[in-house]
């Protein structure tokens, strides 16, 4: 094998690869093209993850939806919770920025991969945190409904049709639907997220573990 590899080496070094040589103009054009590296994708997806949930609150229909919190009497607690959420989010954005800046193509391969994975982990932790916050909100809503003594008041538009149903039954129905909706929403968001990153980083992770597990 060594002989064959040596033969290959001689050929390799002699070889002018039989591909069309690029001209000065062609290369010059290339340097202004947009990169499509995974680092760039991680940046784009992360910015979306940080901003999209907050943009949702700007939609009028979402704002109307917020009124329900008032009606079931948990808006005070939710305000405290969202203040806390923003604080943590800023911490994550800062961490992400710091890690992202550390990524350099001039690093050795192993370090480069390690830093990309670390950067991605910051976002992963943020997503896990966000999803838990959704769950906390849902749990608070369920508790709010449970503690509310006159739940029909929260749904004035449904007053007529709800009159025949007992308070107990109505409460359980609402609690169940909020709970199920919350779980489905969280699972769906988490699923999309992990699928996206799983696909994006599959190759990188393979190569990283290849470099890391070089047991002698």
């Amino acid at each position, binding site marked *: *094998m*060594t002989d*064959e*590899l040596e*033969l*290959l*080496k001689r*050929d*390799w*070094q002699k070889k*002018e*690869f*039989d*591909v069309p*040589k*690029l*001209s*000065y103009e062609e*290369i*010059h054009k*290339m*340097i202004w*093209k*947009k*990169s*499509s*590296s*995974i*680092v760039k*994708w991680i940046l784009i997806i992360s910015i979306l993850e940080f901003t999209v949930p907050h943009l949702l609150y700007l939609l009028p229909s979402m704002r109307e939806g917020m009124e329900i919190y008032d009606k079931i009497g948990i808006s005070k607690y939710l305000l405290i919770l969202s203040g806390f959420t923003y604080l943590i989010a800023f911490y994550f954005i800062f961490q992400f920025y710091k890690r992202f800046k550390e990524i*350099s*193509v*001039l*690093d*050795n*391969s*192993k*370090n*480069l*991969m390690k830093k*990309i994975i670390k950067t991605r982990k910051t976002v992963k932790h943020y997503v896990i945190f966000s999803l838990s916050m959704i769950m906390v909100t849902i749990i608070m809503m369920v508790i709010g409904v449970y503690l509310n003594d006159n739940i029909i008041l929260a749904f004035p538009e449904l007053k007529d049709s709800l009159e025949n149903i007992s308070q107990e039954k109505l409460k359980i129905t609402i609690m169940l639907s909020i709970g199920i909706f919350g779980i489905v929403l969280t699972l769906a968001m988490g699923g999309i997220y992990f699928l996206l990153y799983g696909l*994006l980083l599959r*190759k*990188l992770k*393979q*190569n990283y573990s*290849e*470099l890391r597990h*070089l047991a*002698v």
Partner: protein
Amino acid sequence: MNKDLEHKFVTELQDNQNIVHKVCTLYTNDRDSHNDLFQEITIQLWKAYPKFRGDAKFSTWMYRVALNTAITLYRKRKRRIDTADYESIIFRIKAEEYDETEELQLKLMYKAVKQLNDVDKALVFLYLEDKNYAEISETLGITEVNARVKMNRIKTKLRTILNP
């Protein structure tokens, strides 16, 4: 100033483009992907160029960026693979320079190398470019001992591919 830098960069890359073509040849299977990867490497080189100091040779400096792009940053796009056509062009070996057995041997070797995983290819690439183990270990971020062990394993792997 910026125009100067641009001009210097493009000229140097044009002169050394063979290195990038070699990396692309190892890591892609068709002409479009080859060009795609070439472009991504060019972009990464250009982005990193302000940090390039003249104390190293431009070509030496390129190895790291090109390999890092190929094994870490580059995202393969889904494509119909047209390997046969591509390989017959890239690995065309000038018949007059070799006897037939050698030519066949080389063809099989190239084929075998292309079947290795990304990291193994990087090692073989640096080896073929006549880099010593110190340089290989530094580029990939592994110890020199590991690089040697890995290279030996690759030789075994290639042997298995060639003589199944």
